[in-house]
């Protein structure tokens, strides 16, 4: 295994939003932040691409938003708390948003939580995950 840049890089399925990601996602998160106003949400929903053109997003970031590819948004610097503005605008609950990032169906994910949640066993380290 190559040396990790940060201790937290070993946690599987997890992205810690640090300064590097903050720089990468600055304009993306600024875009999300504007969705806290109804008038902005209205304009965004009427024409997502046009609204996003107001912000200095990369092509990848724009595509990830349009596709609602939440894991990809995180990879591109999206911060989960800022992303909630978009998912709330879409009428999603936090459970629906989180579930959408796991590869499970909404029902499977909800059931997992009813059953006590994802176990910590086997989920501490990337070394425990088949695909890291």
């Amino acid at each position, binding site marked *: 295994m190559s040396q990790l840049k940060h201790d937290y890089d070993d946690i599987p399925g*997890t992205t810690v939003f640090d300064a590097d990601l*903050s720089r990468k996602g600055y304009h993306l998160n600024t875009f999300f932040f504007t969705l*806290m*106003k109804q008038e902005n949400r209205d304009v965004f929903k009427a024409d997502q691409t046009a609204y996003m053109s107001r912000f200095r997003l990369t092509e990848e970031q724009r595509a990830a938003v349009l596709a609602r590819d939440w894991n990809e948004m995180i990879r591109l610097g999206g911060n989960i708390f800022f992303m909630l503005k978009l998912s709330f605008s879409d009428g999603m609950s936090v459970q629906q948003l989180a*579930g959408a990032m*796991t590869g499970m169906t909404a029902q499977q*994910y909800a059931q997992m939580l009813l059953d006590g*949640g*994802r176990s910590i066993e086997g989920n501490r380290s990337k070394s425990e995950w088949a695909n890291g």
Partner: protein
Amino acid sequence: MADLFAGVTTSHVPAIGAALDNGKTAEPYWAPLFKGYEPTKAWFAKMKPDVAILVYNDHACAFSPDVVPTFAIGCADEFLPADEGWGARPVPVVKGDPEFASHIAQSVILDEFDFTIINNMTVDHGLTVPMSLMFGQPKEWPCRVVPIAVNVTQYPFPTGRRCYALGQAIRRAVETYEKDLRVVIMGTGGMSHQIHGPRAGLINSDFDARFLDNLTADPAALVAMPHLEYMREAGAESVELIMWLIMRGALDDAVEEIYRFYHVAASNTAVGHIILENKRSAVRA
């Protein structure tokens, strides 16, 4: 003299607010949770604090990507509920206590904590959901609030040790405030949860139980825990638990655990809640 007589911690899950606001508290999914806070509401109704120092984290609502304060204190007259993307919660305006907040700010800054003073901000579910859990759905909140916002949005966050020391500094600040005030401090956020990425949905009830036990009896065992351990063991977003250490640092070493409640899960989150009274307060009561 101001008297900080008790501390309360609770998770602050947004779905709890939505359940309340949409009249779903009696539904089978939610009823056990709200039942768990009935004793709390009775305790608050009896104790009648004048002010709550409410430690929470802003979830990217008051603070844009431009500004990330490690510790911020709200010194405004009032704080409007934030519109987090689906309209503001239909809850009362949160009334501040500018004079008390400014006293705390001044005291902790001279005590070498590098606060950011906020004279205008909205407050999100991190603050309003605990208010709803403690007080239900009144027309006006029954106490004033000094909001203290802690950065858990962008790493690095303040250390657990720093948070605990801040609590101690807040205690010193309260003890030098000359007005008669009954003060409670609340630490919110946590417990186990992760709401992003393929590992979302993680819950570690053993971790939570140990955390609750140590919070009352042996906080020294918690202050040295690195951020990594929270994030790895109890989900990335469980690091909000550092805010509970601010609450604990503000209390005496000797506390009585008045009430505890634990519930899995609300939305993605393990809900933990505890009420601690300083033993000296219990004697006086």
